[in-house]
């Protein structure tokens, strides 16, 4: 790794840039994607337990119904909804829309607020149905 840049200057590192909401949402999209990746283990455990019989299903259901389980599932719901909204934003950009600076930042803020609000709504609905 000796002098890989051939003496050319490196681009400045992250901390020099002013923080903007779209930056935060870029990394949050990646983090939620990664969280969903490992979250599929939760889905797999639930489905496999349901396929294995009542005993194992009740066992998984009890874990998921515990305080910690509910907390993880709440987080999973938020990650899913946030990644979905972020994904729609990405697709709009890919189609060429939504690049104007102020609009993009507004949309970034809106996606945090609306994903949080939608997650709470989903859980209120879950508690009502239950």
């Amino acid at each position, binding site marked *: 790794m000796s002098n890989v840049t051939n003496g050319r200057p490196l681009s400045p590192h992250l901390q020099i840039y002013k923080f903007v909401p779209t930056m935060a949402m870029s990394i949050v999209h990646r983090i939620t*994607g990664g969280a*969903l990746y490992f979250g599929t*283990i939760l*889905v*797999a455990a639930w*489905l*496999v337990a349901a396929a294995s019989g009542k005993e194992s*299903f009740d066992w998984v259901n009890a874990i998921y119904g515990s305080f910690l389980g509910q907390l993880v599932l709440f987080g999973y719901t938020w990650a899913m909804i946030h990644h979905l909204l972020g994904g729609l934003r990405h697709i709009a950009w890919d189609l060429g829309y939504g690049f104007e600076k102020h609009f993009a930042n507004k949309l970034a803020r809106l996606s945090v607020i609306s994903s949080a609000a939608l997650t709470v709504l*989903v859980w209120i609905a879950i508690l009502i149905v239950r």
Partner: protein
Amino acid sequence: MDMRTPLAKVRGLGSAKSGTEHFWRVRTTAVVLVPLTLFYIVFLIAHAGAPYEVVVAALVNPFVCVITALTIVASIVHMQLGMEEIIQDYIHSEGLKVALLLLNAFFSLFIGGLCLFAALKIAFAG
């Protein structure tokens, strides 16, 4: 001066030799996942914490079973591609990168196979 051969220009696949294939497959699976996950969120609202009999009865329904299977397949492809990109962005040592890319492929296939088998077993054998 353009150093590319006429064949390379016609193929238009660039230096990575796969063009926009990876990008495109992430987008197509993402678009497919939008209605599927919306359906699944509603399904989970209705069945979160429900007893065994209720959940199995729901998953036996052919419509629910097919949607479940499609959601699994689209998610697995999308998440494998997504994780591939994360690994390629952050892991710079060649050996570790290849090892993690393989692990990613195995994990995705394994989880996908497990979920599909479980969904089909419930549908066909209860």
